[in-house]
């Protein structure tokens, strides 16, 4: 039986017109549980959060109370660190995406080839995804990147170079490296299996037409990976927007605000001081911002996903 490749769109009429409405009604009870539960899950905390965002509510100081109007919002929006945090967030997401997707694609091509011990090598390459983010961050910070005790410093010194102070001089970059290391296996896995579904007949045909490895890559492999890359970007973005543990453990957002992203800023301004009103307002702002990013993202890669 001939196999179908993913890029050929299947015609949408899966049922004759007459029976369609019947089918649609029956889909409701199927979707309902997910939708209702998610709706409740979203709406209850959202309503509570919205409510708190308009109150003065400091957990540590019950004497503070009462309606705050938009005070919490203005306090946050006039915080000069807000823009830095947003910029850092976008910067972080962008670069981790670039590294994981770029490197992930190359590695996927590599691991698709036959070589000795490929299975084991693959296992090693996906291991980082299984390690807890806090532990990963601690390992990188103290055993590898530390300018005195760390391994990188040791290598640098053996070669005669001074050790780099990763977290002091390049805080955001260091965090990006750690996060990219953690997410690379995810991208690798998804892209690798997408490559493996590439029809070998197509590849043969292209090779017979005289295509070298570079043009094979750009004209055959890459387009085929379109959907897989979109899914990777989609899912990673959601998680990367709220990276927290790695920053908390390594730089605590610093020095200054150099590695503070939005999630961390919320933690600093609101949770640290148990200013529930402020934290709630910040949460609402974060949701609005994230939704903007998501809409933008989906619009631009939507066609790759839902065809």
């Amino acid at each position, binding site marked *: 039986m001939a196999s179908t490749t993913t890029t050929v769109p299947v015609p949408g009429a899966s049922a004759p017109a007459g029976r369609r409405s019947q089918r649609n009604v029956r889909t409701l009870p199927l979707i309902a549980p997910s939708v209702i539960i998610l709706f409740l899950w979203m709406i209850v905390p959202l309503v509570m959060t919205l409510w708190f965002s308009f109150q003065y509510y*400091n*957990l*540590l*100081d*019950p004497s*503070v109370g009462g309606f705050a109007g938009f005070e919490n919002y203005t*306090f946050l929006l006039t*915080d000069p*660190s807000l823009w830095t945090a947003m910029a850092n967030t976008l910067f972080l997401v962008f670069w981790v995406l670039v590294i994981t997707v770029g490197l992930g694609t190359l590695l996927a091509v590599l691991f698709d080839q036959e070589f000795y011990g490929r299975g084991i090598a693959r296992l090693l390459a996906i291991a980082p995804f299984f390690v807890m983010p806090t532990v990963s961050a601690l390992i990188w*910070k*103290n055993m590898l990147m*530390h*300018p*005195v*005790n760390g391994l990188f410093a040791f290598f640098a010194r053996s070669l005669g170079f*001074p*050790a780099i*102070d*990763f*977290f*002091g*001089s390049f805080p955001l970059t260091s965090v990006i490296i750690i996060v990219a290391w953690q997410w690379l296996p995810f991208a690798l896995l998804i892209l690798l299996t997408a490559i493996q579904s590439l029809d070998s007949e197509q590849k043969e045909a292209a090779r017979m037409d005289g295509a070298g490895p570079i043009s094979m890559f750009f004209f055959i492999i890459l387009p085929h990976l379109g959907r897989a890359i979109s899914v990777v970007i989609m899912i990673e973005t959601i998680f990367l927007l709220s990276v927290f543990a790695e920053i908390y453990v*390594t*730089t*605590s*957002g*610093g*020095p*200054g*605000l*150099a590695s503070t992203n939005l999630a961390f800023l919320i933690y*600093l*301004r609101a*949770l*640290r*001081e*148990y*200013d529930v009103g*402020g934290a709630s307002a910040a949460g609402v702002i974060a949701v609005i911002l994230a939704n903007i990013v998501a809409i933008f993202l989906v619009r631009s890669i939507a066609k790759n996903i839902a065809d």
Partner: protein
Amino acid sequence: MQLRQLTLWSAAGWIAGTGLALAQGQTLTIATVNNADMIIMQRLSPKWEQATGNKLNWVVLEENVLRQRATTDIATKGGQFDIITIGSYEAPIWGKQNWLVTLDDLGADYDYADIIPSVKNGLSYNGKLYAVPFYAESSFTFYRKDLFDQAGIKMPAKPTYDQIAEYAAKLTDKSKEQYGFCQRGKPGWGENMAFIGPMVNAFGGRWFNEKWEPQLTTEPWKNAINYYVKNIREYGPPGATANGHNENRALFATGHCAMWVDATSAAGYIYNPKESQVADKTAFTAAPVQVTSNGSGWFWAWSLGIPASSKKVDAAKSFVKWATSKDYVTLVGNEAGWVAAPPGTRKSTYDNPEYQKAAPFAKVVYDAVVNADLTKPTKDPVPYIGIQYVAIPEFQGIGTAVGQQIAAALAGQTTVEQALETAQRSTERTMKQAGYPK
């Protein structure tokens, strides 16, 4: 005869029954930090469990996580914990809210008079004790006797910061990875600010004036922070902004530092040849002063408190009494070695010849703790208590934000002037939002 036997038997039965009921015991949930002293307490606690028939459920967490978890629970009256380990920062704040049970009634055999007064004051509010001290510490100066002797320098009993800078200059040799001045640079109200706070005090500065106005752009602050940044850059290890207490301790223990001003509680480990390579080369002196000695050594105590929402207050009181008593100190001394006895809380510990023998730094530590007066932390009067912190709930956020700015200055991302400006503005904002003065 029959009646008497019956009475006797029923009496016996009743006693046995009650005894059984008492022996059932309760299960208490205790949350604690993962410090070595607490770990020892966890290890020795079965003795209390056996003696009282109660059981303990241990929740051991890293300090920041513990603080967040405990505060969330106690402030929402979640009722998850029966005993919490809290610091001298939380004790007065939570005591004020009546979130903790008062602990003035543990009995005469507890010997309240034996507890060092500064420690007791640090854990009280309005004269009532809200937490019992498990161990207390101040800060002092660790230095390498061998390096000092080699360079022909004699360390005074109360060095000034200027003198420290002088010695650091002579004792730094970066090519040999020997640094004269290893200090905390990692941002955080309990990290770099724990060192910077007392340093600013020593330079004559204060966090707030009597009207609660932040003072971060005053002369003493500028002098102190300029000193800090200059000396760490010239005489400190690289990557200082990532070094907190642990990292500096590792550096000192592996022989890279000539001087280190930090917690007295680290003395036991530096002195232990199993944990440090400089055990026999280290000496101690008071924390540096400058224009004043007020607030030059910090004060911190880890203590045990009982949330008001606990339903097992009596059993909890029994445990906290046991874990902070004179007998417990002796127990640790015998089981874990006298050098590991919980320091800084009771005079009797320091009068004990065994402890004095095992811990030659004991006298310096004792003096530091006794002199750490929370109520007079600065040269000029202030409306708050606390030496390296200000005992208001907003301080966690403020301290960390200021610590971040100073770390940025240290890393060279901004000048000291700018850092202090930004810190001042951010603190003003927070204080206004919180409604000060009040």
